[in-house]
């Protein structure tokens, strides 16, 4: 486009005027030459040329963008006119800000979790290796699987195994030992994730093989905080759990892992191993051009290779291998819960739109004389619509900007309190940033809402009926039947939408209360827990671990205020490992094992410390150690499921079946049954669980446990457990020879954490429901107050004719409440249809929970009644004389 024409319009207009003058002079000269009088010559010249002004205007408007100027004019007019009604403007902007704010807040999470790609190069080619089976697919791998998978070079560029740093490591060799997250990885890990190397290098294949030596790669964060950003650290050794490790490299900043790691160690797998224990994850990068389907087809062939190599027992017929996009795998089931929240905020937005549309309608009716005057003066329907739309867009963009700030800041504050167990949000939600996506979203929603609620009054106001409007004696008569009906429809929709939201919130609140009421199966109060990393050499054998537990327990019990102490592989509510088992002497048909259950290795004081009740038999004692016969305790759920009639205490269990010779052990006698704890979460039924004495574990299993999980200590006190953190940490460090503890939490805090997702969803939906309800109340109040004001004269006449105040009040109430009831009825219908999407988030309540479906409509009707009561009372206070004299 040629922009030259927009330059220097005024100057060039003056020039054109001169040019026209010159033209006229020449024409006049020509006429005079033909012998006409000077007067006549001038007259004819002008006549021939026509109006010079028209010519100038044509050039002027050709040099302008007319619509832009009109928009600018309308915008200035809109600002002036909005400033004249500050009350209306403030309410409208606030309502929009809330509507857009909640949308921005939820979208910022959706954006971070679902939309933003992983921070690795070419994230779409990163996949996670999955185990498929009748129960669905889940990640996890053992060495044989890794061995087969990483041979699939036709589909994978790199294949790498890694863990989540679960066990933790201790940086020793200084006065200040520190527990760090050490992630074990195979050699291709860094290349696969495209990790930037800041100094040195990553592991070689030789370093990642058995006896590859002690080497370590540091993260940027640890390098900076612990080693003072010293590049010369590469090539030196550092002490980890008392052993020297050679630092071979430092990874650059910006390499994000979930969860964050402080340093990396090579796994050094023995690929000839037949060890069947699953304790790490495997991811891979697809070769360029390889699709998910092709890769899955190749993995089908790999299943057969696996069965040929490790025996058909290692992979049952219905089980297999597959892949899933790494991003989807990380996001997991968060997607559906975020989508429900997104749907809920969309409802809030609709209510906000209806509300503002209603406000604008009322405003338009008060301004209809102004608009009619404009129309009479020649403003087209399009021009009036444009002007009203610009007004509504001014409102929506201002509200949207405010909402963006409100929503973003509010969400960050919320995430500080509760991350809701959502992945990818970073610490305190730091990963949720104000990026272009979010800005575009807020802008798009603002424009959309502005047009949406602006169009309604614009169409209604631009309906040409000039004579009637100009003739109206005041701006008090109604906007006419049509827009009155329109406003009622808007209010009814608001009520219906709000009802759906509040029912959703009520269901989640009920869910949360039910969860709170679940007995976790033990006494959570006054228990402090902490993790001790036992990755050092002396904990590779059972006796070493048993020793530190014996010493530690004794030492802890001597601390004043401590009543009991225990150690275990895992804590209740956090979930432990799983293990298959056989009941000795019971036929199992074709099954590979009688069943499977949770696996907890615990010290003998575990049940007493947590106050998990012993239902039958006996608990563990200090004497159930390696020299004593093998024993095991099961929970009630296991007893009920596998011994519906028989007596478990008469049976023996063979555990770790099919897990390879390393973990084989003789059968264990069942000596007791304890109460259930909800280890898979309060919303899940307790699953069958087996408890093993730590001091009786085979060495291989102890070594594996020490590698994949820390040792958890639990201390029961009769004082506030938080007050004992210092003496307990000191005591444990002393008895363990300097091992630090980390992840110090009370059991009550862990309990709260297990319901954080539900709490998060409930909190958000309650906020949405409350704002929806408030807006609907404002909506119905606004409509009725307006109606009463419109009918002042009529009410005055009625009262003058002897109508009772109560009958006037009831008339207004009846009118308002009938709208509310229609809205509630529609809302109930909508809720019945929509709550099915909530079903998977509910616990202990049905999607059509009668309480929610009765209480919520009552609540909504009560709120509507209050909102209508105010204008209804105002109606009874109308003074007939004032009303009649009003004109």
């Amino acid at each position, binding site marked *: 486009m040629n922009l030259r024409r927009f330059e220097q319009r005024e100057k060039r207009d003056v020039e054109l005027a001169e040019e026209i003058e*010159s*033209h006229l002079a020449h024409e006049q000269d020509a006429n005079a030459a033909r012998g006409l009088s000077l007067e006549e010559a001038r007259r004819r010249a002008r006549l021939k040329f026509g109006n010079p002004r028209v*010519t100038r205007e044509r050039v002027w408007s050709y040099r302008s963008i007319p619509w832009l100027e009109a928009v600018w004019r309308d915008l200035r007019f809109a600002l002036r006119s909005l400033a004249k009604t500050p009350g209306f403007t403030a309410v409208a902007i606030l309502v929009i800000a809330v509507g857009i704010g909640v949308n921005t807040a939820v979208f910022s999470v959706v954006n971070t979790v679902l939309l933003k790609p992983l921070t690795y190069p070419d994230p779409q080619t990163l996949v996670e290796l999955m185990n498929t089976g009748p129960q669905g697919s889940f990640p996890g791998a053992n060495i044989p699987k890794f061995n087969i998978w990483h041979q699939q070079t036709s589909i994978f560029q790199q294949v790498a195994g890694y863990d989540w740093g679960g066990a933790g490591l201790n940086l020793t060799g200084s006065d200040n030992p520190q527990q760090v997250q050490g992630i074990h990885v195979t050699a291709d890990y860094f290349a696969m994730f495209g990790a930037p190397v800041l100094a040195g290098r990553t592991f070689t294949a030789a370093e990642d093989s058995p006896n590859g030596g002690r080497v370590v790669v540091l993260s940027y964060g640890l390098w900076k905080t612990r080693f003072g950003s010293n590049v010369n650290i590469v090539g030196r050794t550092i002490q980890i759990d008392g052993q020297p490790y050679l630092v071979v490299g430092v990874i650059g900043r910006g390499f994000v892992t979930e969860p964050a790691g402080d340093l990396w160690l090579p796994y050094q797998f023995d690929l000839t191993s037949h060890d069947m224990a699953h304790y790490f994850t495997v991811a891979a990068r697809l070769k360029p051009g390889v699709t998910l389907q092709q890769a899955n087809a190749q993995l089908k062939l790999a299943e057969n290779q696996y069965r040929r190599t490790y025996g058909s027992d290692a992979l049952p017929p219905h089980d297999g291998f597959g892949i899933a996009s790494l991003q989807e795998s990380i996001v997991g089931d968060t997607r559906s819960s975020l989508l429900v929240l997104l749907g809920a905020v969309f409802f809030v937005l609709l209510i906000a739109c209806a509300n503002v549309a209603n406000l604008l309608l009322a405003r338009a009716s008060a301004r209809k004389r102004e608009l009619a005057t404009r129309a009479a003066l020649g403003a087209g329907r399009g021009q009036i619509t444009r002007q009203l739309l610009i007004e509504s867009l001014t409102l929506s963009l201002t509200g949207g900007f405010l909402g963006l700030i409100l929503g973003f800041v509010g969400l960050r504050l919320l995430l500080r309190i509760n991350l809701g167990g959502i992945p990818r949000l970073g610490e305190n939600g730091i990963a949720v940033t104000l990026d272009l996506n979010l800005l575009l979203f807020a802008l798009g929603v603002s424009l959309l809402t502005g047009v949406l609620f602006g169009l309604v009054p614009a169409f209604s106001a631009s309906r040409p009926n000039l004579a009637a409007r100009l003739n109206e004696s005041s701006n008090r008569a109604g906007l006419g039947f049509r827009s009155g009906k329109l406003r009622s429809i808007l209010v009814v929709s608001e009520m219906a939408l709000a009802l759906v939201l509040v029912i959703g919130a009520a269901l989640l609140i009920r869910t949360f209360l039910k969860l709170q009421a679940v007995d976790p199966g033990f006494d959570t109060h006054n228990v402090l827990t902490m993790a001790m990393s036992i990755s050092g050499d002396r904990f590779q054998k059972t006796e070493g671990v048993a020793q530190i537990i014996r010493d530690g327990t004794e030492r802890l019990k001597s601390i004043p205020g401590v009543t009991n102490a225990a150690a275990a592989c895992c804590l209740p509510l956090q979930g432990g490992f799983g293990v298959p088992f056989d009941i000795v002497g019971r036929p199992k048909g074709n099954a590979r094992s009688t069943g499977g259950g949770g696996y907890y290795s615990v010290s003998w004081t575990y049940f007493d410390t947590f106050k998990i009740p012993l239902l039958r038999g006996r608990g563990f004692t200090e004497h159930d150690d390696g020299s004593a016969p093998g024993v095991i305790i099961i929970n009630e759920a296991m007893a009920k499921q596998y011994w519906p009639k028989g007596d478990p205490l008469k049976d023996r269990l063979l555990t770790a079946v099919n897990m390879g010779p390393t973990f084989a052990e003789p059968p264990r006698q069942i000596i007791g049954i304890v109460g259930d704890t909800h280890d898979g979460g309060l919303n899940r039924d307790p699953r069958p669980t087996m408890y093993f004495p730590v001091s009786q574990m085979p060495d291989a299993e102890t070594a594996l446990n020490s590698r994949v999980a820390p040792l958890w200590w639990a201390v029961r006190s009769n004082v506030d457990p938080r007050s004992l953190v210092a003496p307990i940490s000191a005591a444990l460090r002393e008895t363990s020879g300097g091992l630090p503890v980390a992840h110090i939490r009370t059991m009550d805090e862990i309990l709260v954490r297990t319901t954080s997702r539900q709490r998060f969803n409930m909190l958000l939906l309650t906020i949405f429901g409350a704002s929806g309800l408030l807006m609907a109340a404002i909506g119905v109040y606004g409509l009725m107050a307006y109606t009463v004001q419109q009918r002042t004269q009529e009410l005055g006449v009625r009262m003058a004719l002897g109508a009772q105040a109560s009958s006037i009040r009831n008339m207004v109430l009846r009118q308002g409440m009938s709208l509310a009831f229609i809205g509630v009825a529609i809302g109930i219908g909508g809720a019945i249809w929509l709550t099915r999407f909530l079903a998977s988030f509910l616990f202990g309540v049905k999607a059509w929970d009668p309480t929610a479906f009765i209480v919520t409509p009552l609540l909504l009707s009560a709120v509507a009644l209050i909102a209508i009561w105010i204008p209804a009372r105002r109606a009874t206070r109308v003074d007939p004389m004032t009303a009649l004299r009003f004109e």
Partner: protein
Amino acid sequence: MGAKKTPAAGDILQGTLDMLILRTLVMGPAHGHTIAEVIERTSENSLDVEQGSLYPALHRLEDRGMLASEWGTSENNRKAKFYRLTAKGRKELAAATSRWRQMTRAIGLILGESME
């Protein structure tokens, strides 16, 4: 808006005015009044330049770089703005002329020479 005028024979077709202006300026620089006069005279007074449209057309052509202008003194010793063809304008004139010839030939074929 008023009702649309029915075009009379003398009205210049939309778009052809530009071509006629360019053609006129081939003979050398001229000011607005001369241009209008030349178009009317060379067409044996059968084309009537609506003088009000002349100046918007001149300005448009100048903005598009087909004409250049400068103030000077006219044959009547009056101040006048002289327009002159640029290289771009020359090229456009050639293109417009050939377009026009093609079109009139096509229209002539359709209407049929026999009508004459």
